[in-house]
């Protein structure tokens, strides 16, 4: 956005139209010499060459543009940018996402559980305001994908790159929570939150979910656990990232509701049940509204003055007109 320190100066632009009229269209204007053809001893004047008329017109045009730029520059133009400075620390949030093969369950149409979970996380993160977010995924093992930080672009890029069964066939839920806790250890945030999204029971890893939840509770971390999917027989389809082989079939779906409830209770969080993509969306919206803190901000306004650029361009344009007319076209006055 452009602002002016002295907007009143822009009123001087109003002198341009009368000046242009007087300089180029007024009948009695000076700088012209009338004379009689009868006393002219040389060849009769011929109409001007089109190209030179065009150059003369362009030259005058440059002059008036230059004049206009000088008048604008005199009003003190500046480019204004605003930056919101956060004076308070946000909430640290780590998503712990199950990427075991069962997350390919096709009861979350049009995609599957895994893609639906990724979509709601994306929406959730885009809606956050200066809260550091991190990402842990787990299969047979658990790894940190994104450390908690404010680089949302980096987060979303890495979330998009997640693949089912990248970490083997298994559900190391306890390990996932433990890894998230480990990476929240250095956090200075007053509130730390883990959002666990899974569709299965802990069946891999050295740490039990209850033990991991106790560690989280000791560190003051709240865990929201979300059980994804319906119970019973569910169709499944996924591609093994290592072999590229496509697997299709039916499997007996069901997560351990008791453990998820227990984890949330230990850490003063909440347990949610997502039977459909719509329900998952609503759950994430609820967590989003539950985990909001008041933030103090300040608006910094940075102005970059552009008068110098305008003066320089205006100055050059006027001189181009001057040299063209006086040197090339031999204008007397």
């Amino acid at each position, binding site marked *: 956005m452009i602002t002016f320190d*002295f907007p009143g100066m822009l009123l*001087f632009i109003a*002198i341009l139209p009368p*000046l242009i009229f*007087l*300089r180029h269209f*007024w009948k*009695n*204007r*000076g*700088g*012209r*010499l*009338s*004379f009689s053809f009868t*006393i002219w001893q040389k060849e009769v004047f011929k109409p001007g060459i089109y190209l030179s008329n065009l150059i003369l017109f362009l030259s005058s045009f440059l002059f008036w543009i230059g*004049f206009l730029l*000088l*008048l604008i*520059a*005199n009003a*003190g133009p500046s480019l204004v940018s605003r*930056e*919101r*400075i*956060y004076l308070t620390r946000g909430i640290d949030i780590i998503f712990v996402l199950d990427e075991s093969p069962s997350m390919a369950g096709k009861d979350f149409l049009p995609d599957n559980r895994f893609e639906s979970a990724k979509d709601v996380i994306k929406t959730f993160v885009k809606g956050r305001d*200066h809260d*550091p977010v*991190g990402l842990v995924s787990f299969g047979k093992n658990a790894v*940190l994908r*994104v*450390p*908690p*930080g*404010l*680089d949302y672009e*980096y987060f979303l890029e890495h979330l998009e790159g997640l693949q089912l069964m990248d970490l083997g066939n298994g559900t190391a839920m306890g390990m996932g929570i433990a890894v998230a806790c*480990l*990476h*929240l*250890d*250095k*956090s*200075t945030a007053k509130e730390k939150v883990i959002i666990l999204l899974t569709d299965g029971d802990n069946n891999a890893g050295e740490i039990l979910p209850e033990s991991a939840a106790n560690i989280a509770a000791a560190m003051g971390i709240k865990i929201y656990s979300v059980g994804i999917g319906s119970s019973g027989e569910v169709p499944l389809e996924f591609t093994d990232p290592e072999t590229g082989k496509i697997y299709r079939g039916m499997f007996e779906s069901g997560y351990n509701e008791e453990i998820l409830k227990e984890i949330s209770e230990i850490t003063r969080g909440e347990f949610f049940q997502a039977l459909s993509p719509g329900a998952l969306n609503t759950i994430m919206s609820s967590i989003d509204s539950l985990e909001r803190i008041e933030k103090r901000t300040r608006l910094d306004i940075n102005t970059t*003055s552009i*008068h*110098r650029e305008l*003066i*320089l361009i205006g*100055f050059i344009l*006027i*001189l181009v007109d*001057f*040299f063209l007319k*006086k*040197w090339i076209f*031999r*204008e*007397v*006055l």
Partner: protein
Amino acid sequence: MVSRPDAFLLFFILPPLFFVLFKRYKRGKRDLSAIGGKWRSGLLMDVFLIKWFFSSLLIILFVIFSILALAEFTGGGKTTVESSSGVDLVFTVDISGSMLGTDVYPSRLKRSTDLISAFIENLPGERFSLVVFKGSGIKIIPITEDSSSVNTVLPYLNPDIFSSEGSNLESGIRTAINSFTSGEERKKIILLFTDGESFSGNTSLLSKEVKLKEITILIFGTGTDQGTELYSLSGEPLIDDKGNIVISRQNTALLQELAVSENIFYLNISDSSVLNNSIDIINKQAGAAVISNNKESRYQIFLSAAILFIFLYISVRIFPWKNTF
């Protein structure tokens, strides 16, 4: 005080301007007497002389005052003080093949990663990011308080993690600049680890950019001026096209050249006090409040005069004198 003295170079326009004006005077007289005829030549010459004198004077004054406006005379202004609330450090590591040189024990790259670990240990509570560069810069870890994520990655840094060739310093620094997040009053510091050898990219405009964005850069020169041989995976010394053994040296001159502005520092990684010295610099930067004096530009006085002169210059021509021209 003049903040843009480079504008005075425009005064070199004046000699050609005088030349054109003088030439116009001579030719103008000749052309007028040819066009106007002898019977009114006296009157024409009088008006021409006066008009030529004033229009020449006015265009010269316009040029002089425009240049003075461009020179930005400043004065007065307000002093503002901004304090910071922490430091964000972006470790930017060159992982080109030459960083495996062993003229620094155990290797240039290993010494760099050891120093990074020492920084993390000695600067608790700060935020860190890790960028590596070869043919281009890549953000490995975004800005985070979670220093363990940086420490976890450090042992795995080596030239083979990316297939691109070369040592694009510009891309590395640019990726580091883009790693900082906005919306906070934190000091921004880039710690650059490179031997500066066979670098590519244009770094000439970077110093201006980092100054504008209030970023400090500490350049850690890895390697020695004597250099070292480089070895292939099979353990054989690398040989160039002419059959000579390749010697890799630190490009000290380049790295020192980069550290020309007040916010860019050069340190040698082989210096025994490099850690203490650089932590001193970081702490000074972290504790230092940004004091800026926004002096007011007085360009408007000169620009208004320049506009007035160009207005009068047009008017001299527009209005006919003595009912002549």
